[in-house]
């Protein structure tokens, strides 16, 4: 049903073709390393988030993006800062990829006033307006309307902004998605629906919840589609760049299906999970399909970076993340008076 390997091959071919054509290798190299760093930042962020939960320092629970880094980073690589994204309950990766600071994110996850949402949103509602992140959403599929409306707004305001709407394959169960895809195509709105198929809706394999073929759904509305190996960040970036270009040119919406995998449980507390997915499957993805390892190897193969350079990036990120956690832990909670603030603008 997934056609993953075929898609992956096509995407890889395209990617090589396009990247080879880039003109300034030094600029290109810096950008590659930045892309690498962004993926590592997400990975390390999630390690800390998991740790904070397991040591009972973080309130509530949270959904880890580790394993899916190439999707968020690849997509956001193709966006401008003033483009918008909407995100999901599994939203840390999108937030970081779109340009957020780790310290303000940890502060948010810890419910502190310094957080992106002053501690009022938490993991499932983190938003970063300055970088165009309209927010994570705890309603599955809940941001499909918002993303499409932001695209309508871009058109009405006469800008060439584009919107990327992230959602998991579970959101294909929500009728809202079909309602808004129809309008997006009717009105040729600049929105890219990014379906992150990590194989599971919570504790159920998506094949048990998804009839037919995923890409036939957007196609039924006449929406342009693409499929990509979500573990290959360059492939994601390349195909997204094409979709963004179409959208900016007024050619309308598109739907990108990215095949990916989450390393952790559905949420941090989902630890006994063999009843719905095997340890072998997890091990396979981690060892053979890790987006950071794959990209790191690719960068080394082409002499864009050495192992040492990549190690330095990771060390820098670990340092950044540790400071960010410390910042979050030390930051004060909001004043009690904040509870009644911001109900109304």
């Amino acid at each position, binding site marked *: 049903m997934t056609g993953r390997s075929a898609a992956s091959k096509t995407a890889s071919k395209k990617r090589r073709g396009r990247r080879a054509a880039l003109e300034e290798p030094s600029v290109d190299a810096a950008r590659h390393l930045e892309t690498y760093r962004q993926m590592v930042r997400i990975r390390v962020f999630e390690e800390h988030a998991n740790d904070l939960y397991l040591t009972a320092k973080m309130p509530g629970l949270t959904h880890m993006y580790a394993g899916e880094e190439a999707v968020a980073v690849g997509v956001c690589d193709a966006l401008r800062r003033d483009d*918008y994204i*909407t995100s999901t309950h599994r939203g840390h990766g999108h937030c970081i990829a779109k340009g957020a600071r780790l310290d303000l994110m940890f502060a948010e996850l810890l419910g502190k006033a310094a*957080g*992106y*949402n*002053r*501690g*009022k*949103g938490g993991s499932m*509602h983190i*938003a970063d*307006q300055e970088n165009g992140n*309209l*927010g994570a*959403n705890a*309603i599955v599929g*809940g*941001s*499909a*309307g*918002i*993303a*499409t*409306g*932001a*695209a*309508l*707004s*871009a058109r*009405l*305001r006469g800008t060439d902004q584009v*919107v990327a709407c992230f959602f998991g394959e579970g959101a294909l169960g929500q*009728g*809202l998605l079909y*309602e*808004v895809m*129809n*309008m997006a195509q*009717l009105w040729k709105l600049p929105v890219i629906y990014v379906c992150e198929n990590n194989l599971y809706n919570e504790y159920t394999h998506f094949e048990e919840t998804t009839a037919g073929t995923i890409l036939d759904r957007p196609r039924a509305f006449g929406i342009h589609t693409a499929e990509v190996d979500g573990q290959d960040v360059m492939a994601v970036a390349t195909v997204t760049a094409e979709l963004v270009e179409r959208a900016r040119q007024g050619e309308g919406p598109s739907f990108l299906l990215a095949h990916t995998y989450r390393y952790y449980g559905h949420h941090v507390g989902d630890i006994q999970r063999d009843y719905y997915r095997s340890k072998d499957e997890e091990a396979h993805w981690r060892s053979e399909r890790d987006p950071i390892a794959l990209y790191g190897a690719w960068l080394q193969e082409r002499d864009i970076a050495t192992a040492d350079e990549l190690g330095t990036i990771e060390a820098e990120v670990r340092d950044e993340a540790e400071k960010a956690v410390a910042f979050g832990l030390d930051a004060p909670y909001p004043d009690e008076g904040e509870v009644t*603030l*911001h*109900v*109304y*603008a």
Partner: protein
Amino acid sequence: MSTPSRTVEPRAAAGVRTITFAQAVNEALAEEMRRDPAVFILGEDVAEAGTPFKVLSGLVDEFGPERVRDTPISEAGFAGLAVGAAMTGMRPVVDLMFGDFLTLVMDQLVNQAAKTHYMSGGKLKVPMVLRTTLGATRRSAAQHSQSLHAWVSHVPGLKVALPATPYDAKGLMKAAIRDDNPVVIVEDKLSFQDKGPVPEGEIVIPLGQADVKREGTDITFIATSSMVVVALRAAETLAAQGLSAEVVDPRSMVPLDTATLVESAKKTGRVVVIDEGHQSYGVSAELAAVVADGAFYHLDAPVKRLGAMDVPVPFSPVLEDLTVPTPEQLTALAREMCGARS
């Protein structure tokens, strides 16, 4: 039993025209769209058709189909689009044909629009208006006759206005469009052809200001939307019988002008709340509770409520008319509360 005619007594004055409720809404929208290019309308058959109620007739001619935008029959979808558009610089006005279709947009309205400002710690805002209807006795049966404003009134982050006259319809709509929050405006679908005095020029009625529609001393009627005219009619009848009823229209459920309601209750000592939502767990409960608490030591009788019957709205006219409070019922109740015998 017959439906009361719906024309509110005009309070004519110089420079004041008499226009219909529909015209008042139409004017408010046109004026705001002229003033602010961010304002646009979306909904089903809003453009050429001007909605089935014809309230928006002509707007598409002036503002074009991009700003008066016909949608597919996708209430959740276009409500969601409005939220996203509002978060990014626009001021959408969503036209939801029947209030009964609130069922379809609750997630976008409640989980998205209402909470975004708060959840984002004040960073994002959602300046949108959702216009919809309430009211039975139109022989439209159970799925096209509900008055569901209690639901949205219960949701922090939403404001809720219920205009009862053309004047209020215009002034509240203009305030709602300028408000930086999601505002739900619920209009009585039977009132669109009612006429009333509306001055030329700018009218903006701040949300949260009750209006004393008639002064009185013996009993207070707190009446919403379609029930304002019922209360006024009852007050007239009572006046002829020597009883002086005050009619207070809160005009918005959220924010609620508690002070004006309690003040009137303290003055008269007797209160009936009249609302067309189902009585149980309706807005009449909140209004009654607020007044019974705030005016406790001044009340000569328990606060009474008249809401719609707790039944789905039946189609048959003979049954439907029984479900909505009438001036006759209100008159009888008021007389009983004031100790007058009929």
